[in-house]
């Protein structure tokens, strides 16, 4: 299941003053149906970043087989660090940056996710600044 940003529910996002990042490939967002996903999509649209949503599990792996700028996955409260997901993604798309969004992570959760192969961890409560910083730096260094 792929849902391009043209059909995104995001409509009210504010624009950003930053220069627009360029990437030939979309940012993939794992849509697990959680509330954070809509917010992530809304913010990416506000950042004028091209994104596509994909379903969890096998759908994610199918999506990363095509080219992607990075993958954003929400993983609950941090006790569900998606190590196996990151490993599976890297088998299909070696080197693809996986940004993990965690609700109320502590430093130990963060370090565990990073050691598990995440490119970055973003706090669920600080999505805007986290996405802006991590996605922009990734796209600009691409």
């Amino acid at each position, binding site marked *: 299941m792929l849902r391009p940003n043209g059909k995104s529910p995001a409509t009210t996002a504010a624009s950003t003053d930053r220069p627009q990042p360029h990437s030939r490939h979309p940012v993939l967002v794992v849509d697990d149906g959680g509330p954070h996903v809509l917010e992530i999509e809304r913010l990416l649209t506000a950042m004028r970043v091209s994104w596509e949503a994909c379903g969890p599990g096998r759908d994610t792996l199918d999506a990363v087989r095509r080219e992607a700028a990075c993958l954003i996955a929400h993983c609950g409260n941090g006790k569900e660090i998606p190590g196996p997901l990151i490993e599976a993604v890297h088998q299909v798309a070696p080197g693809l940056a996986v940004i993990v969004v965690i609700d109320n992570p502590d*430093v*130990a959760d963060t*370090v565990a996710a*990073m050691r598990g192969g995440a490119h*970055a*961890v973003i*706090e669920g409560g600080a999505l805007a600044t986290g996405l802006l*910083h991590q996605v922009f730096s990734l796209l600009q260094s691409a």
Partner: protein
Amino acid sequence: MTAPSPTVFIVDDDEAVRSSLRMLIRSVGLQARAFGLAHEFLDAYAPDLPGCIVLDVRMPGMSGMEMQQELNRRGATIPVVFITGHGDVPMAVEAMQHGAFDFLQKPFRDQDLLDRVQRALERDAQTRAAFTARATIRERIQSLTPRELEVMRLVTMGKANKVIGAELGVSQRTVEIHRAHVMEKMQANSLAALVRMALDAAQDTENS
């Protein structure tokens, strides 16, 4: 000559923390050296010394993060375990993205730090062993003649002696002799081992 024992370098501006960490690390039989400022450590640091660094994030002058970046600029591979009393998620992410081995928030249990130090020392030993192995392969490759080098390249591409002979315009027997020299000089006991060495050497060239 035996390799020097690993040293745990402690860099923290707080004298009390330095003393207690030094004591803790020495209590498990490891060598420890402590520095109060990043510059002091950088001035004293010799990359050939095995070990790891326990590094405070916040220090006057050069911060722990800046010191890590300076080590990166110098190409140092020594693992860094950050410790901080004011850590947050973005800080941990930044440190890990810049290659920190671990990031620990104060106050921490003694055993937690010792476990991380132990793992960091193991990582350092692995990195150094891999570096030595690559250097050995480089030396062996440098001992090959241009013709042997060419034969090695073709052999590791999976080409048969007969094909190599045709490509180089020499007899199959000549290729066999060069191939034997290559195996001997590279100390490879099988074609698979030779291929691994060639891949390591190629990777090494790519990284340098």
